[in-house]
């Protein structure tokens, strides 16, 4: 324990305190933001037509979630992230009054602001605007005050301002040491946060500006092989804009994708935990062109450890019954129990290109958008997109392409919302009980009570 008066003085103190903000982003279990159970990682796919689970969370994709259900436990309580935003603010205020050097102050504040913007953007996508505690109340938490959800324009400006202020002091990705700095905020991630924010807003001009900024960093590039993006031997390749570093040896700091996903009967080169949770719906697998090389990351058949062949026609419970097995991350020879050494990939360059294509299509027409689109197609083995599509057809192609490109990366829910197709797609599940106005996630009921009438629930709950 360190008393307040003894801490937060030196450059090193600022660094150690900053690390606590990164714990939120990617600490044990992947942190809250990136947690790969119900974090951003694949949650956005789990509540849509892409993924399914063998676990007892059927209500999740039947869209029967309620405001009382969405507290902690299964969902990891997204609204609790409001506090993480306050923590970033508190950190910044303390750094400002510390004795650290100005250079260090500028650097850590820039990273903290980017983290704050990242979390704010993430919450905006799923819940909408949230209440943000003004700076003057941050350091006096005993004076309990509640604030209403921010106005949308102010909220967006807050995120924009954070990134604008941070950018001059953030590193260019090429200046980051992959072995010791990978996973820290940089200019690429900062632009990505803004690009994602304006995608939600359908502010295509801005999407184009920030997409172009990322391209102009002149650092990122597509991996020639889709499968190789996720290979453990190819960690931190140039396609990855933001990957959360993982290490199987450090307690709770490995990547648990395989454990969460693989069926128990599936043979693997090393013994590992297989909880057979997540699957890729067959209906989604069938939307791929069979020649699409991205299907290399989808296991549709294997000879089980019991010697029997399993596929969609010969299933066993937990094995191909509800869908195929997504295996984007390859098998790690150094896998330990439920942990592998794959970084959790959150942002990658292909997203920038497809977002550029989408923005250009919306701003004018598909004609200039094809070049961005087709870059992503190069490695798929299915050729370029059919020429001469209308704006609407191109738009639909992008939505489908994004599903094929980013499955199990959490992109589908914001994509469907943006394309105004979330409800329609949800209803394709005959057991879905979704209501027309249930677009955003509910705020858990305990916060509604805590804020005493000041916090207004999202529609539909």
């Amino acid at each position: 324990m360190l008393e307040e008066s003894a801490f937060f003085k030196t450059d090193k103190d600022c660094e150690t305190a900053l690390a606590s903000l990164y714990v939120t982003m990617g600490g044990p279990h992947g942190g809250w933001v990136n947690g790969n159970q119900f974090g951003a990682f694949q949650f956005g796919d789990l509540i849509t037509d892409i993924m399914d689970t063998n676990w007892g969370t059927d209500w999740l994709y039947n869209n029967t979630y309620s405001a009382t259900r969405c507290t902690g436990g299964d969902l990891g309580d997204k609204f609790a992230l409001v506090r993480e935003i306050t923590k970033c603010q508190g950190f910044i205020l303390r750094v400002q009054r510390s004795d650290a050097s100005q250079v260090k102050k500028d650097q850590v504040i820039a990273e903290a602001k980017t983290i704050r913007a990242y979390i704010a953007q993430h919450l905006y996508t799923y819940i909408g605007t949230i209440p943000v505690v003004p700076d003057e109340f941050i350091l006096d938490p005993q004076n309990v005050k509640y604030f209403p959800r921010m106005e949308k324009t102010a909220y967006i400006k807050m995120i924009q301002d954070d990134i604008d202020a941070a950018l001059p002091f953030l590193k260019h990705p090429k200046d980051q040491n992959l072995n010791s700095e990978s996973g820290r905020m940089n200019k690429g991630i900062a632009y990505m946060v803004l690009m994602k924010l304006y995608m939600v807003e359908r502010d295509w001009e801005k999407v184009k500006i920030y997409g172009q900024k990322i391209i102009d960093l002149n650092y990122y590039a597509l991996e020639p092989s889709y499968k190789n993006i996720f290979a453990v031997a190819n960690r931190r390749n140039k396609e990855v804009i933001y990957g959360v570093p993982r290490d199987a040896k450090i307690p709770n700091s490995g990547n648990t994708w395989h454990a969460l996903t693989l069926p128990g009967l599936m043979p693997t080169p090393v013994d590992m935990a297989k909880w057979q949770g997540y699957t890729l719906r067959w209906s989604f697998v069938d939307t791929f062109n069979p020649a699409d090389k991205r299907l290399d990351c989808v296991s549709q058949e294997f000879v089980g450890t019991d010697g029997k062949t399993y596929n969609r026609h010969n299933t066993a419970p937990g094995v191909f019954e509800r869908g195929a097995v997504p295996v984007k991350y390859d098998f790690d020879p150094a896998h330990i129990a439920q942990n592998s050494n794959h970084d959790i990939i959150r942002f990658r360059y292909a997203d920038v290109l497809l977002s550029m294509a989408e923005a250009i299509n919306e701003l004018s027409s598909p004609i200039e958008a094809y070049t961005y689109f087709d870059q992503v197609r190069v490695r798929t083995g299915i050729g370029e997109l059919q020429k001469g599509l209308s704006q609407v057809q191109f738009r639909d192609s992008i939505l489908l392409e994004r599903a094929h490109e980013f499955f199990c990366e959490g992109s589908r829910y914001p994509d469907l919302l943006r394309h105004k197709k979330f409800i329609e797609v949800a209803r394709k599940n005959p057991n879905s009980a979704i209501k027309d106005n249930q677009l955003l996630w509910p705020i858990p009921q305990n916060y509604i009570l805590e804020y005493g009438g000041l916090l207004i629930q999202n529609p539909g709950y």
Partner: protein
Amino acid sequence: MKKKCKWECFPPGSISKILLRMKLLTFFIFVSMVTATASSYSQQTKFNLKLSGVTVRQVFQEIEANSEFILLYNEKQLDANRKVNVDVNDKTVESILDQIFAGSNNTFKIYDRQIVVLATESKDSPTTIKSNINSEQKKELSGTVRDSKGLTLPGVSVIVKGTTLGIVTDSDGKFVLAVPSDSKFLVFSFVGMKSQEFAITEKTTINLVMMDEAFGIEEVVVLGYGSLKRKEVTGSVSSVKMKDLPQTGSATVAQLLSGRAAGLTTTLASAQPGGRVNLQIRGTATGRSPLIVIDGFPVSGFTNGTVGVYSGGDTDAVLSSINPNDIETIDVLKDASATSIYGSKAAGGVILITTKRGKSGKVAVEFNGNVGVSQAYALPEMMNATQFMTEKNRENKEKFLYNNQIAPYGVKKWEDVSGYKPVYVDSDFSKWENNRGTEWDKEVMRTAMIQNYGVNFRGGDQSTQYFASFGYYDQEGIVKNNNYKKITGQINIDQKLGKKVNLGITMNLNRTYMDNVPLQAGYAEESDLLRSAFLSPPNMEVRDANGKYNLNPFAPYLSNPVSLLDIINQTKNDRIIANGFLTYEILSGLQLKGMLGTDIMMSQGYGYLPITTVMGSRVNGRADERLDDKNDYQAQLFLKYNKVLNEKHVISAMIGTEYIKTSQHGFRATNTDFISDSFLWYNLGIGAGYPSVGSYGSKSETIGYIGRLNYAYDERYFLTANLRIDGSSNFAQNHQWGYFPGISVGWDIAQESFMKNISQTLDQFKLRVGYGQTGNDNIGTAFANYYIPGDKTMYGNIVNSSIALGSLGNPDLKWETQTDLNAGVDFSLFNGKLGGSVEYFNRVISDLLGWKPLSSGSEITGISANMDSKKQTYGYEASLNSQNFKTNTFTWNTSFTFTYYRDRWLKRDDSWRPDINSTEKQYFGELWYHLTDGIVQPGETLSYTNKPIPGTVKLKDIDGYLKDDKGAIVLDENRIPKRTGAPDGKLDNADLVKIGINTPFSLGFTNQFRYKKFDLGVTFYGMFNRWKTNSTRQLLTDSYWMKDGLNQSTEVQNRWNSDNMSGYLPSSLQGQSSFGVGNYYLEKAWFIRLSNIDLGYTMSLKRAGIRNLRVFVAMQNPFIITSYKGMDPETDVREASYPNQRNCQIGLNLKF
């Protein structure tokens, strides 16, 4: 360290000085006990000092400034301003002090570097014992004392009335006593028996039969730092005499206490061997468990160290070290007028355990031995292989219908959809024909054996008395490989040194071994053994043809239950509770008592997870080792004064101080990836995995000051007043000291003259009222905000430590106060044939120390604070003891206890955030549930969902949250959300209904019969007004999980299914519903348990050298009457709890 220490005058609030002073005091007591002072420092340190006309104080300052000596003195005893001259050259400190104290009233003692200045002892001899007997006028009396069974009674005190002259009967119950010839009466007294006065006549041989006291108003009640006769007690105290408890073996004392003491609620937290018992005195509002004091030593909490992925369950580590057979009495202090003497530790009440001590007379040797078997009961009936496959097929088909929207789940017809395939086909069924399949529960359970042996002897002469005991207890669990062994030793010695000094040693030695099996509540791959055993599919052999464990094909991440028995996991505990005391009678009635004690606890855990288990194979074996070590030290110093004035005023007073130091530390180490399972934990270093280590440690010190006054007038009016002052380093200086007063008064109306006419009937009718306060400091810290290390995070390959704001200090923190009011009546009728007490109590806890929530959106979401809220517990207790029948050959005694209480809020803090069902004065334990309304049938519509699933539980939409036009909830003036008053199409907290208040009242009912040489004891206890979720039934009928190939109980065949729409259990699609099952599995769980029945036959075998032989048969828990449908309403603490058992034992008890 500053060296300004005065013997007496220390300003309150100066903890460090106090502690220093206490250490010195401790030291002082210690040296006075061992009387050895090897003060080489004082011999080696030489002074050159020449001072004239200076004060004594200045000389002391000079000594302290030039050496490491510390001078301690009482300003009342020393004139520090007296002018003196000092002139020494190369002399020891002794010479200086000799010079300055020459001719004064002071002397000094040197203990290493501490010098204590004392007042010169008064020369007046305190040896003023009244009974100056003229030796020429003596008369010798002799005789034998027996009990009602005709057995001789050793240890009965025989005193000449009005004198201190007396003796104790020897092991044959005989006594010889010379008395003054003018003596009128002899008084015979014995704990638990009615005292008798015997008029001395010409006869010199006296044969006397002592009567059992059904309700002993003369018996001694231990009150903490002292004792009183039951009839003088004015606070609320229940006593349990161990001789009344069944003699059969029970692993821990706590298990014997159920229903024995009114006000003490016991619930068995686990039915495993050595399982923990939750003890709770007068409700839960206090939030504290009772303080347990073993032979004057307040023992602190400790847990048994277990290691590994699985823990060994829930075992007791506090009371387990005591052998029940070594205990004389257990006294339960319930209200603050009694408990305030223990101050800050006593908020949860106090349980005082007193072990047997020696008695003068011939040595009495006792041997106990019993063996028995135990067996689980009421295990759920699981499906056999054929039933399982049938139900699995039905479950699978139902899911197919649902997923494909086939009727009754949609409009499609069966013929419209192809692709259905049953899981099991005819060939599977024929394979298990006439074969139940694997009965997994039987594979992991057994009929277990219990053995219990003990030998003890007690004896002594007038100056030395001793009690020594050795016990061995060995219990097999009904789960295989689950064993509990205990070796206990007790040595108690009392020694008189002359007329003024008594010494004593109390020592409890204990070793416990536990073989642990996975018994914690675990899920999925970490499922505990019993959960795994219930749920494993019956159509699977334990091992395959190669001898390898089979795994559930539907959920191969689940361990084979039998493989879990391969885990080797042990716990070994060692404990020594030892204390020594010394009393010194300064003057008649004035006694100084010092006590030093220690409680040394060490728990070691070892474990190896072999590769035959699923969890072990993933890491290629895992070995763990762990050590937890805790040491408590205690020093007490008391001055006690007893005086009888004019034969009517009985005064006893006591002041004292108590110092306690606690330190604990522990470490653990783990490694994985072993080349062989054979190393177990003996070579952690050989593991090729990633070893992990951790350790912890802490120390704390507390000091308290104690005062008590007891006053009785004419055995009619009684008063007890306590005061305890405790300092806590948790609070800021101005809030450090807590003052805990207790006062209680009693009035025995039966002794009044106006009651004379019925005094033959009414022995006692005592009204008593008590008031007292205890406190609580056990939270947070008053001091500055702290930053604490957080989780680690990674940049690239580098692991980075993080530090974040951990908590906010609150300088305003102060003691939480618990105020008790207690009123009761004690009565005794017909010479103690009927006695009892009835009590009412009201407890209010204010300035609640709690976690005050701040905004969930702020950096720190809560702070330790004294809440502006109040909790209340009130209730009634009654106990009744009755001698129903008594002849020479047949007696029948009954005792009965009743406990009722309610906990509730009285006042809420501003930070309270009520929900719609909250009320200002809400009771604890209110049960709020959604009400079930049967099962959803096809075609039915529900308000709260547009996709009701047929077969799932239907719940009632009753009410809703009122919202304004913006959609914000509307609150009333108490900040409680308002209701719409009508169903709102949503199922939320507004629809919860209060089923009851789950605060049981408990009863105990004990009968003892004696017919000639047979004795029979029958003990019942029960709890009423109690509900419990039958979570095992829920687990074993939740057919949704059959998807993972989990077996279910046979009841699951009665579920709703599209082919059985009248089924009463929720269907296998219940898991698809997001609305839960409401109160479906909530059951009333009142019960009456026959906890013990034992039948014995006692004979005397004098010729064989055996004074007394008792053989007995006993059964524990032979039956239970309850409305609850699970295994056991008490021990079903979660799904697949450790099943409770029936024990059957035979044994013998020999007395020599």
